[in-house]
């Protein structure tokens, strides 16, 4: 677990694990043992809900026969989509409940999480999941008032977090972007873009453009910073390498959002989609990067699923626009890949429930740096 702390100089990280993980000390008292799951639970688990709701949106898009009467659309049983959607909803509800309990009972840990440069980004994840679920919901039409209400409910936290975190990037001394930037920071951008897409779907063009432009500007900065790879931004532990996949989730999401805003998959969308395709190829062609993360199952594996799903979504939109055989094949391949990955992850999660909440999560421990209330 000291993996992260030992692999890079602690001075480079905003919150390095100075003290040992409380869970390892064995000094846990009875009530702590009862809520041990809360101690070990963290926002990173929202990767699961993110992946599932992304899948739900993908199935919704694929089976959306209103615009594109393709054979694939009709072959997807709607019951399966409903099942998937409810599964995603259930998972998200469960995770949210757990996290709310954690907020109540382990508030210092949550605060530490908020200050951690990796974990902080995952605070966006529940809201993104909610927005994705909202967009894929079979029960509401985008112009329903409830939809608007829910959009406000889910996008406000994202906007507030944006203001907080983007402000930190260029004002707070210890949280300069060059220090805190890591691939997980893409989630903040994705939050913006998802919000913009949902707004565009509702027909709020100006709001969508405004949110999109904020996201795009910060994405530019983040992309450059991440590509430069300063020493400070190298602080992602090897266990979390799957998060690298978010590199291509952001441009895909941007292309989806711009597609919704401009209501056609134009050259800009294509460029963003192609960029994410290239980044995907670039990541896939270096499997050694992920070798250390693949040794043991952990919740970080779930980070593979969501980017693939978003890429498949963008590919679906692209195929809808281009209508070529190659585009369709690409879309099918990516969709099958993302579904397969998600299924495999679900199977792994079911089989290895023990590994899901490890005692030595490298991601977890720094969050507990402040002593727990006894």
């Amino acid at each position, binding site marked *: 677990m000291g993996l992260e702390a030992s692999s890079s100089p602690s001075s480079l990280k905003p919150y390095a694990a100075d003290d040992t993980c409380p869970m390892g000390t064995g000094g846990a008292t009875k009530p702590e043992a009862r809520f041990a799951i809360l101690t070990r639970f963290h926002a990173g688990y929202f990767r699961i809900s993110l992946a599932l709701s992304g899948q739900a949106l993908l199935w919704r898009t694929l089976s959306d026969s209103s615009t594109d009467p393709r054979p694939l659309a009709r072959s997807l049983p709607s019951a399966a989509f409903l099942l998937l959607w409810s599964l995603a909803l259930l998972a998200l509800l469960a995770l949210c409940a757990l996290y709310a309990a954690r907020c109540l009972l382990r508030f210092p840990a949550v605060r530490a999480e908020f200050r951690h440069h990796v974990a902080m980004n995952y605070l966006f994840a529940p809201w993104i999941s909610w927005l994705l679920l909202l967009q894929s919901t079979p029960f509401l039409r985008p112009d329903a008032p409830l939809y608007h209400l829910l959009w406000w409910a889910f996008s406000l936290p994202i906007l507030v977090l944006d203001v907080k975190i983007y402000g930190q990037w260029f004002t707070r001394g210890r949280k300069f972007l060059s220090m805190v930037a890591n691939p997980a920071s893409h989630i903040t951008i994705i939050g913006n873009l998802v919000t913009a897409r949902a707004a565009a779907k509702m027909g709020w063009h100006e709001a969508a453009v405004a949110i999109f432009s904020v996201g795009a500007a910060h994405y*530019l900065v983040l*992309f*450059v910073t*991440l*590509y*430069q*790879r*300063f*020493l400070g931004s*190298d602080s992602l532990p090897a266990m979390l390498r799957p998060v*690298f996949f978010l*590199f291509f989730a952001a*441009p895909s999401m941007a292309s989806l959002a711009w597609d919704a805003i401009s209501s056609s998959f134009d*050259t800009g969308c*294509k*460029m*963003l*989609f*192609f*960029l994410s*395709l*290239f*980044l995907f*190829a*670039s*990541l896939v*062609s*270096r499997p050694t*990067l992920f070798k250390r993360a693949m040794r043991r199952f952990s919740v970080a594996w779930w980070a593979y699923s969501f980017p693939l799903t978003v890429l498949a979504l963008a590919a679906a939109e692209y195929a809808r626009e*281009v209508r*070529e055989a190659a*585009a369709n094949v690409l879309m099918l391949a990516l969709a099958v890949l993302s579904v397969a990955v998600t299924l495999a992850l679900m199977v792994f999660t079911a089989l290895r429930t023990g590994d899901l909440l490890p005692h030595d999560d490298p991601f977890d421990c720094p969050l507990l740096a402040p002593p727990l209330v006894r």
Partner: protein
Amino acid sequence: MHLACLYGVYIFSLDESRRANTSIGPFASFHPLFRWCWVPKLAAATAVGFFSSGFSLLLFPQPADHFQLEATGEAKGFLNIGMEFSSKDIQMAGLHSEQSAREALPAFLIQVPSQTIAGFDCVGGDANVSLNEADNESGTTTGNQDIVISIPAPASAPRSALPGRAYDDAHIPYSISLSMPASPSGLHLSQFRTSAVQRDEARVTPAVAEFDVHPVEEQVEVHSPRLLKQTRFHSQPILLHGSKNVDEARRCDSTRDKRFDPFKTFSGRLERQLSNLRGRPQEPIDAVSPESKISEEETDQVPGADRYFDALEGPELDTLRATEVPVLPKDDKWPFLLRFPISAFGMCLGVSSQAILWKTLASAPPTAFLHVSLVVNHVLWYVALALMVLVSSIYLLKVVFYFEAVRREFYHPIRANFFFAPWIACLFLVLGAPRQETEMHHGVWYALMAPIFCLELKIYGQWMSGGQRRLSKVANPSNHLSIVGNFVVALLGAKMGLREGPIFFFAVGLAHYMVLFVTLYQRLPTNVTLPKELHPVFFLFVAAPSVASMAWAKINGHFDTGARIAYFIALFLYMSLAVRINFFRGFRFSLAWWAYTFPMTGASIATITYATEVNNVLTRTLSIGLSGIATVTVAGLLVTTVFHAFVLRDLFPNDVSIAITRRKPKFSKILAHFRSSSSDMKELVFSLSKPSQSESGETDPSVICARAEP
């Protein structure tokens, strides 16, 4: 060995050759001077026949009856004999120190006469040992890279007068071993033939495993007509009987120039590695001189990126720091191929972009009043084509014979970008071709796009995934070469009428261009290689936006706002470079400068494209002016190149940037180097004065700290 695989190089299953009675035909009658390159793993592969003089034929005594040279490809593999590339080896042989009188002769001709024959047996260690267990005791000191050809001698051969032998003859009663350098096998073949005629009764003694001493009649069979062709060379070596020259022979063996062996693709090391792979651990008794051992260690792995920054200096990282000791001899001239850098493809870039420029000048409406003839374009294009063929064939030779050097170039933080140059030059050739782009087959685009795409996956992946070659460390203006390829691909694809492919490359190029642009402008303290003063390399800044503007204009169908934005960025960068240019300010000329001319040409072509859209006096003046500047620059560079090539004769200086050691040399080694070097005093003084200079201005201390080894 994987190098060999890479290049389809051949492949001979030794196992099979041993078990089956495959070997050399009339081998007993002369010294077969082939070296046989075999790659067991690929024995079944349908590799392409590859002719090269570097291939060696390994012969060894066999328990077999007949030894036949399988010169035609059979199930066992192919023996590839090449005569084409002998010049290199001759040159290398010429590097031999003492025997200047014989320099004109190929290496084996130098050696062979001295090897007076019959039972002589100057066994070299390595390859022979790895193959013949019986040769274990051979303790002579031939270099580790020697390929040893051991030939069973006639049973009646006098095994006289080798008093100083360190090995036991009883083990290898009748074997003759020759250790030869890589030398033109064609010449060997001629020997093979002449001697075969004379000694068709040669006897073979199977020596190795069973120590079966029954001589076997040997069947002289030459399968390949090629073997018979070359009879001009009358080297009689093996036919000489007598032992008087044995000592000399040994000396010759040891004086063979082994200093460049670590960089050779086909040297003894390869064969030994192969035998290791085949599960036959080589004997540790290789009599290897300590120096060559060291050099072998050092070339086993490519130096890390840090080492390149530590050991080299200069804006192109092409000068060795004074505290460094090169792997290769510093004072001598290296073989030509080793001195031939990848940046030579810059010439192709420069000339082929000129061809495009003149094509545009001749065909674009705003410059129609100039009445430029298309002939200029044709001439330039054919010159560019010839240059491309020449440069790429030479470089291909380097890939084949000095793969290690190529590998080191590929890991050189700046040279790596030049690996895009050949493909970009090919794209330029297609763009500048006398035909219309729309008439061309789309396959051309796909064929040229694929290597660029693969290189990008490699290079951009290195930037992104961190490690030693993260962008914050290697960022350099020459990285533009790896960006601009995207836009050229997009431009060509759009001109051909493709739609999605160009957008793909444009998107990838744009994203990475932004990253690179910001990084270069930031001048991070971790960027060691950014030149402090203005250097021609900065003109690469102009390349990407100007080509991007043309590509975007082609993708969108007209020169729209996006294209104009890119074009004006290029124009601004061009101007800001032009106002602070200081001509002839003490930069060492290098071939890479050619690569820096194509941005100017690109800017002028973009200007002409812009003038097509906005046609007024200003734009026309601008386009003519910029074209003139580009042409004059290229002409000036041509003159300089010719001057350096034929007057100063230093166009291809020793390419030290590939010869750095893998680890920082110890101080004692540096001292030893200076002592041993011929011009020691001067060097020493030079080295003492140099560090103070470099400390004063060149290196940034923080950077050095950052580069400290983990």
